[in-house]
């Protein structure tokens, strides 16, 4: 055998690595996956520290700035030199015939940005803070991504919306993943009557079209339920409908894996079912699980946004990317204030990020990749 030659230090260094250390090492080397991870982390941080990152609250209204276009951050001074970041206010002009309002940046309204400024209060884990990551030095309002029909800061709402949207996506995906895996693996591994019953249930669940069922169930929900209750119901219904596919796919895989010699070999050294399941069966279905989850997450995010778009999803005052897009569901608003579509950007970024992360993870865990 012509073994790959490794230099001594490398051998030394890799000798004591555990499996996960190895995976991490491989993952770090995967540029695409790393970018995904970082982007996903940013999105998650945004969700967790929404209050700190968002300059304003969800419902903070700026009455003087309704449908105001985005104010970009500039770092080049008008005379050309590099300066501290600033934003420029908008000067408005109205066409006397069409009443169209046109915006032009107004140098008079230049506002410098600072880090860690005081602003609207926010709470985190029961504590109240009023420091925000950034804001104008003099406290005058500014809107990075413009404002909506009520003068609410789109950027801030988007940051806040990350919470609900991500929570929904992650919650539903994770719960469905856990249930689907547990049921699928158990029914594939143990077989028998359990499998028979589970498979009938799966078939039953799979025969329900999720969107109509969801809509129908919403109709029977108590009208005055708390937004949080509705959110949880919403998530629960989605989970209910989503685990089935996964469990069926996994079951098939498990049936073939459980007859593999390495499973019997584990038995031969005295491993219990629980160990065989967690160490041998589940890891060997992991790449499928990752693919499933990375596809599921965007699906749930999009479904949430669509249902909220229809007005039957997340309810005010909770804000999600979907509820934000709900404001733009007629194309007039969309034409007049395209910046209201900003959450689409976030959906795209986060979906891509989680996908890249998932792919990277799968590659890192795949023994056959990059050898």
């Amino acid at each position, binding site marked *: 055998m012509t073994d790959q030659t490794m230099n001594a230090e490398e051998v030394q260094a890799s000798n004591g690595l555990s499996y996960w250390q190895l995976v991490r090492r491989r993952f770090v080397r995967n540029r695409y996956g790393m970018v995904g991870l970082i982007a996903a982390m940013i999105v998650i941080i945004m969700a967790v520290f929404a209050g700190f990152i968002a300059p304003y609250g969800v*419902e903070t*209204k700026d*009455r003087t700035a*309704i*449908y105001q276009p985005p104010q970009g951050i500039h770092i080049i001074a008008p005379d050309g030199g590099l300066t501290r970041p600033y934003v420029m206010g908008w000067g408005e002009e*109205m066409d006397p*015939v*069409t*009443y*169209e*309002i046109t915006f032009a940046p107004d140098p008079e309204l230049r506002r410098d940005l600072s880090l860690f400024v005081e602003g609207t209060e926010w709470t985190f884990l029961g504590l109240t803070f009023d420091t925000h990551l950034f804001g104008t030095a003099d406290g005058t309002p500014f809107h990075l991504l413009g404002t909506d*029909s*009520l*003068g*609410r800061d789109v950027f801030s709402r988007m940051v806040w919306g990350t919470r609900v949207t991500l929570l929904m996506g992650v919650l539903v995906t994770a719960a469905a993943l856990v249930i689907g895996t547990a049921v699928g693996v158990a029914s594939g591994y143990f077989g028998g009557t359990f499998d028979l019953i589970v498979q009938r249930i799966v078939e039953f669940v799979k025969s329900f079209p999720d969107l109509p069922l969801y809509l129908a169930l919403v109709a029977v929900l108590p*009208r*005055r339920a*708390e937004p949080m209750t509705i959110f949880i119901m919403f998530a629960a219904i989605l989970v209910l409908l989503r685990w089935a596919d996964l469990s069926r796919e996994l079951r098939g895989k498990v049936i073939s894996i459980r007859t593999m010699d390495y499973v019997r070999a584990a038995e031969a050294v005295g491993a219990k079912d629980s160990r065989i399941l967690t160490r041998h069966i589940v890891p060997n279905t992991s790449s499928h699980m990752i693919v499933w989850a990375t596809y599921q997450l965007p699906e749930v995010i999009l479904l949430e946004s669509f249902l909220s778009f229809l*007005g039957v999803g997340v*309810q*005010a*005052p909770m804000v999600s990317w979907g509820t934000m897009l709900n*404001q733009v569901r*007629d194309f*007039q*608003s969309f*034409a*007049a204030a395209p910046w209201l579509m900003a959450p689409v950007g976030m959906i795209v970024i986060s979906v891509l990020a989680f996908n890249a992360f998932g792919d990277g993870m799968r590659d890192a865990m795949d023994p056959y990749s990059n050898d």
Partner: protein
Amino acid sequence: DPMPEEQSLAGLEYDLIGRDDLWTYEALPEYHQAPFLDALVESGALPPVEDRLPAEPLVMQAGAMSAGIGEYGGVFRHVIGGRPEGWNILAGQHQGWGGINMATQECLVRQGPRWQVRPEEQTGPLPNLAKSWEWNDDMTELTMHLVEGAKWSDGDPFDTEDIAFWYDDNVQNADINSRISKDAFGGGASLEVIDDYTFKFVFPTAQSNTVVEGLAYIQGCPGPSHVLKDFHPDYNADMNYDDYLNAMPADAVPIPVMGAWVPVEHKPDELVILRRNPYYFKVDSEGNQLPYINEMHFKLTTWDDRTTQAVAGTGDWSNMENPGNFVEALKQSQDENSPVSAKFGPRTLSWRIELNFAQNMTDDPYEQELRGLFRELPFRQALSHAIDRDAVGQALARGPFAYPYIGGFASGSPYYDPAYSVYTPFDQDKAKELLAGLGLEDTDGNGVLNMPGTGEDLVIDMTYKPQRTDDRKQMDAVTSQLAEVGIRVLPKTVDETSFDPMRNAGDFSAILQRANFVLPTRETCGNLPVSDICPPFHLSGPDGRDSLPFEERLTAITSEMSATDDAGKQTELANEMEQLLTENLYNIGLVQVPAALLVNKRVQNAHPGTPVFMYEWAEDAVIRERLWVPADQQMEEILPGTVAVYE
């Protein structure tokens, strides 16, 4: 507080004429018909035109037409967001609005075209099916004369049998939810038929010509008794009122109409096609039977689409009333090649929140307590103070379009006087104070006030039509603004088709909708407490109505107004009404906007300056039966050469 300053966008050029310059009733030496009808007459399918017309048809004067006598033929394309509910207009069914209604129905009198009449001649409504009327001396008896010899589109004669059926068997029948409710017309008029073409209303108290306005669209329009009697429980023991309501289902066409066009095809959700009514009782001053246009389409899509398609030129008409579209449409219509041009009229379109006051119509303890709150003036004031109307207006469309509306008359109404409008400005602190005064407190710390009785969160189910973009935008704004004072609004969508029945049944907590209050005589029941089942937001319930303190006065003012022709007296009453409505916040007004009429440039006789909404919607005001298109610009008809055929 006084109303804020208003900036008008109206660009109307009125060229006003006399009342009788519009139309007269007279026999002409000869009559002409749309050429394609000749063949039908020849084949015997139709009687000759002079036999189809009344002895003295309604004659539209060429002098009142901006483009004069027209050419026959062609298609007129409407686009609407509504869907016909059914054709039994006597039982209150709507046809999806947007002008199908007025194309198929004629009413005793007419209001729409009045905008063209000089102010000094504004002496009540214009004649229509009733060609004239007179009062007895003490103004308690109104005798009306029908056009003689007019016929339904199936050839059946139109006469007092139809009037009696309409009034006695529908309006006066409490089991039927007709457009005028029992006892609402003139405080409970009774009908006496004198002969085939003459009948008399007898009123309990003295009335005036104003009351006759209530016989215009959409209230005083008879239906085909020769068809409907067979379904009416009073005439056919096998029928119940459900059967009656559904006697003329939406997709069962054609139906007999008095209007200029007959619906001949209805593909649900897609299209309604109307063909000319060969029995239509109107002609132009050269004896040409109206309408000029052979075919009318109603494409069933969305209200926004109506404007879009009109701007794009694929629809011929839009009441441009959705502010979200204004700027884009104005921009597009600037183009020289644009198929339409747009000019705004006065602000007559107004949105409001209707709160259900009928506390005794619900068994649900929560709902009862909520309605109890609605009945409290401070609560309504709190709501009104909590709403930022400027912001709502800007949310609709940025620019100078919207103006705060506080309830009462729209600012474009001839009755509006800002001096009598009591304004509750945006003041959330005040609102909170008022709410606290009612014992509303956030006891569970979830940001929503709890009600003193049931202790539940103060959540208002607010029904609206999701298809109407403007309604939705205002709903968003209101939801968000009321949340700031601790009131949670739960938007509830109801499809347009079922909206009216739902509203009429009082089956809601609160409604957010557009309701244009311009004339007290139009859709009176929808606005004022004139009978047990009016307005829908305060039905009487089995044990009678538990009136709000000012409601009785409102009822009185309404009847006093219809009882007087005296302009000064009317103004005085209107002012009082305005004051009562606004200081008591009978409805919570939101904003009001102007509208512009878009009619394809190819269409002639769409009188310049026709307002989208004044005495009636523009579909009525523009007098569509006189619209015409030069032959070389006419579009191809889908059903050329045909008229409705009845089995």
